[in-house]
């Protein structure tokens, strides 16, 4: 039995890769080929779909917009969550548990509930259709997550570290930035990964809060699909390209994923 153990993950990975392969396969086909024939690989190989995306600014700006607000959101979330997670992991204070749970409820709240009031709220403060609006709205679910993960990592660091540093005459700021943050670097990496991930994949709020200037690539895709018929090839190419930033991020945190998860909430 032990001999065939590798089969399970292998089959699972094949199952995961099949739809992705199909998407990439479609992206190299011409529209006529997609509609008229069923083929496992492109018969008439074409890069036309990609050329269109990289030359048409409504398409490639979608990527720029998505990455911009995602990066903003990751920075805001982690920066705000770091001190809060430290407080949760080191101190007891009035209402700490309730605050923690309240934060968590926002991670649980269905975005569909918030879509409409968000639209009106961000319009009324003049932030509609800006990157910062999307970045701030994604804080709703990313900050609770960041606090939660970071708190797990920080609790794994023994308190003696703090105490020794104070005995050695470190000020709080110096200790926090010079000693503590490097200690939990892996945790910060994994937190950023999650923040990036959830901000990158979210569409409902991003679409509600943008019109033209900050429109995410995902929204560009749905809109093009509805206005100019179903250009499957183009859609597939745009979809394939959205996988790339994620793949890059995973590559960077690949060592942290295993180590990070293990240290995190266990």
């Amino acid at each position, binding site marked *: 039995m032990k001999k065939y153990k590798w089969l399970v993950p292998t089959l699972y990975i094949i199952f995961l890769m099949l739809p992705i392969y199909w998407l990439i396969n479609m992206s190299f086909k011409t529209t006529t080929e997609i509609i008229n024939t069923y083929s496992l690989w492109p018969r008439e190989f074409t890069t036309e779909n990609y050329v269109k995306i990289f030359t048409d600014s409504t398409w490639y700006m979608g990527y720029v917009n998505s990455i911009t607000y995602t990066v903003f959101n990751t920075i805001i979330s982690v920066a705000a969550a770091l001190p809060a997670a430290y407080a949760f992991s080191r101190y007891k204070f*009035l*209402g700490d*548990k*309730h605050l923690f*749970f309240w934060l968590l409820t926002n991670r649980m709240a269905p975005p569909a509930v918030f879509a409409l*009031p968000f*639209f*009106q709220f961000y*319009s*009324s*403060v*003049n932030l*509609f259709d800006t990157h910062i609006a999307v970045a701030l709205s994604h804080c709703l679910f990313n900050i609770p997550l960041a606090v939660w993960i970071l708190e797990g990592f920080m609790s794994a660091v023994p308190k003696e570290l703090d105490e020794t540093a104070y005995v050695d005459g470190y000020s709080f700021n110096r200790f926090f930035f010079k000693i503590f943050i490097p200690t939990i670097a892996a945790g910060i990496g994994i937190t950023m990964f999650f923040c990036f991930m959830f901000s990158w994949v979210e569409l409902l709020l991003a*679409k*509600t809060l943008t*019109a033209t200037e900050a429109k995410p690539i995902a*929204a560009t895709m*749905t*809109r093009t699909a*509805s206005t100019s018929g179903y250009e499957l090839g183009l859609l597939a190419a745009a979809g394939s390209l959205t996988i790339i930033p994620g793949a890059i991020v995973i590559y960077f945190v690949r060592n942290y994923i295993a180590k990070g998860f293990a240290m995190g909430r266990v």
Partner: protein
Amino acid sequence: MIFTKLHAATWGDVGKAKEKGFFDFDLFSWMAWTWQTASFFIFIALCITVMLIWEKYSPGGSPRKGILGLDTTRGDRLFVSLLGSAFIHLAWLGLVGSMLWIATIICVAYFVIVFKYV
């Protein structure tokens, strides 16, 4: 998509409100406050304030293990009471439909029970 159409048709006015100053009252008109809902939120705020004062006079939140087998403090009991009240009201609305004040009376009793036993 659905959102674009709405933006043009129905939500056009919402976006216009922003031409005025930042701290304009228009900023909040879309929230559609009424005295009933406002008093509801004031009630919640009062509950939290009472909790804070209570905490000041007898710190620690009187933790105990209630009938649910959970370790609860005063704050937990408040949360359980409020969430439970929401469900009692909803159940009353769905099953009976009229005379909602009876549900409110049940909730008061429920509050007392939760604070005593949970």
